[in-house]
């Protein structure tokens, strides 16, 4: 090979290399997690976890880097519609109280609270023995829950993300969250308890999502910072615990309000049981006084 040809080849090779390097510089998200959250940040978090006897088993999400307040309104409280959906023509007893209204039939109890929360609980003595003992897996439990909601028109188009958790043998908890632009609203959900191939309980609190109103996007704290903020609050744990999940979403507590703004959060699960919501703007723990437990 003569020098001229060699030069041509080298030019092509280096040109390709330059293009490759340029692309990698301009699109950092294309890289691995180590490219998007600095090593220093990760090391600080891991060090803090270790000092407080926590182990990280969750993946650290790289996004989002910016977010906004989500505006929601109070859940619709279609009392008659819900009564119709759950009881149809059944004979029911009605009790009205200060906090809400309760419908009771032979098979179930439906309580609709004034703020829009409702719970539907089956009278388990009415369940057939076969139904309760049917062996099901997570997938089947999810199907049972989905069908239950679809039959009652409660699986709406803004319901997306779901979670399935095994409680005991043949008993599962299935949660469907509302979503906005594929980001879950953790405080807007319907939670179902499935036993065998039957739904035995449904609890729902679903504010209506309005969207983003007159608010600009703002920077959020990285997931690593959210984890450190939580560990700082929880402190040292005697028994080793696991950070089992870190997920972005929206969350606020319930309000007796017409309309309110919901902040973006990092949801951090400890041992797959306790869930904490860290405000992604401020780092405050939104549910400081209570942790959502699935048990």
């Amino acid at each position, binding site marked *: 090979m003569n020098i*001229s040809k060699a*030069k041509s080849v080298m030019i092509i090779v280096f*040109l390709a290399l330059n293009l490759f390097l340029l692309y990698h*510089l301009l699109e950092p*998200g294309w890289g691995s997690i180590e490219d998007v959250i600095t090593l220093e940040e990760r090391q600080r978090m891991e060090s803090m976890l270790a000092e407080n006897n926590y182990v990280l088993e969750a993946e650290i999400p790289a996004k989002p880097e910016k977010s906004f307040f989500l505006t929601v309104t109070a859940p619709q409280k279609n009392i008659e519609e819900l009564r119709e959906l759950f009881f149809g023509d059944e004979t029911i007893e009605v009790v009205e109280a200060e906090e809400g209204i309760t419908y009771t039939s032979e098979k179930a109890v439906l309580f609709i609270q004034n703020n829009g929360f409702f719970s539907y609980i089956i009278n388990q003595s009415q369940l057939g023995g076969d139904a309760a003992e049917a062996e099901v897996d997570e997938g089947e439990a999810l199907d049972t829950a989905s069908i239950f909601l679809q039959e009652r028109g409660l699986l709406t188009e803004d319901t997306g993300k779901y979670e399935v958790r095994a409680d005991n043998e043949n008993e599962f908890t299935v949660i469907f969250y509302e979503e906005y632009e594929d980001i879950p609203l953790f405080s807007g959900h319907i939670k179902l308890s499935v036993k065998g191939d039957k739904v035995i309980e449904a609890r729902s609190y679903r504010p209506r999502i309005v969207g983003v109103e007159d608010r600009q996007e703002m920077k959020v704290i*990285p997931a690593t910072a959210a984890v450190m903020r939580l560990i700082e609050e929880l402190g040292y744990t005697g028994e080793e615990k696991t950070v089992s999940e870190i997920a972005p979403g929206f969350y606020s507590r319930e309000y007796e*309000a017409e309309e309110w*703004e919901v902040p973006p959060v990092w949801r951090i699960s400890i041992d797959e049981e306790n869930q904490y919501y860290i405000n992604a703007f401020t780092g405050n723990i939104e549910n400081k006084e209570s942790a959502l437990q699935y048990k």
Partner: protein
Amino acid sequence: MNTEKLKTYILCGLVISGLILTSFLWYGDYPYYEDTEPVFQEVFFFEEPRSECGIVTPQKIVLPLEQENFTVFRRGEEGFHYIWDSLLEQLGRGSFEEQPAIYLPEEKPDIVLYFKPVIFPEMIFASDERERGSYSRGKIFIQSDEEIYIFFENTDNRGLLIKFNGESTGAALANITAEVLNKGYTVFSLLKDSESLRENGEDNEEGEAEEADASVGEELISEEDSAGGDDSEADNEIIDYRVEKDIYLPEEELMVSSLLRFDEEELSREDLLKAIFVDKELARRIAEPDGTLIFTDGERGLRISDSVEYTAPGLEGGAVTYTYRTALNKANEYICFYGGWADSLFLREIDKIGTAMGSNESFRGIWSYYVEGFPVLGERGTTEVRFNDQGLFYYRRSLLVPDFSPETARVAAAPGEEALREALGIYRNDSAREDGLVYIINDLFPAYIIDASEKTDETDAYLVWVVQVEEKKIFLDAVNLKQVFPGDSDEYF
């Protein structure tokens, strides 16, 4: 240039740029979250805190007259501000020195100042930093054109005598009081104990004890004087009382506005948000069905309806190591920073509350508007702050501003003595105590109250007599002396 040379240059260029790009990747920091300059929001506050001499004003200024008579100027009255502002101006010049109490003049004082909250003399004397304690009363003796004595005293018999020398200070004060008196005044007298009244009644053969005072606690009460109804029998009985503080009651009929109307203070919501939240963009908004707006960042909350209410629960439960004087200055800062301190709003009291062991302690300050000398009381009409060493954790600001020139009809209020008699009867019946006891009268004054039970679009207040018999406060309509129940906790009265 021939082709080979061009190729060489291109190749060199690509090699160099490759090295440069590689170094960017190798050494460059990729915080995924942009490393931007921190944004420092300008600290916003409504107004600068007042100077110390503007924090505490006397509750009343009394000018002794002849024959155990007085005239009284209360907060909100024109004469009051003229005297007080002039006094402050005089005390801002000249020199002073502390004197032994034996030099206290024997004659009666020319001006008496009653302070609640208590005053620290160094707050009103310019260039005096030495701490001399707090006092609830100040007596001014004008000795000459240049010299005055001020005797500060307290209920625990502590006293501080100050001799003040200033160019024409004495003359100026004498002229000011004369000027005020020349404009006309109402004569007041001190409320006496029931025992004193009976003694006066026995000593005076012609029975010339003042009719209004004599009606109280006396056995012989005319039927015309009795309040009538079911209490008529109680009215005729002797109810002994003792007066614990100086209570001045007008000798003449008290003409008052039958109703007090209010306007809403215009306070910029945006300014409030900027003042309270470091970054107001981080505060989320909650709209309640009744139109109330709440803003919170998870640690602090601001609620805006017909009042402004701020809470920071995380700061509660702390201790207080401030001195009382520091607490006065802190209260001054908080109200000025978060909304401002209007001239017609007065600090009515500031107290340390909470447990004695140091935890969960706080200072509480309460402000009221004064209309024609009478305070506007009740939760809806007052402004309150609570704070500890950690900072302000509660602030409620009434947005109701009274009409200071009410145009409603003037009516005659019932005499204070009759209000006292009525209140004593109520207290005795309610407390079911034995006959023959002596009741302690801790306070008696007229005030406007906004009824907490009525929340309509029109906010009105009406005048009542507030009678504190021992620890209980009794409220009587100032015109018909019927008992009223404002519905708020006693701390707002």
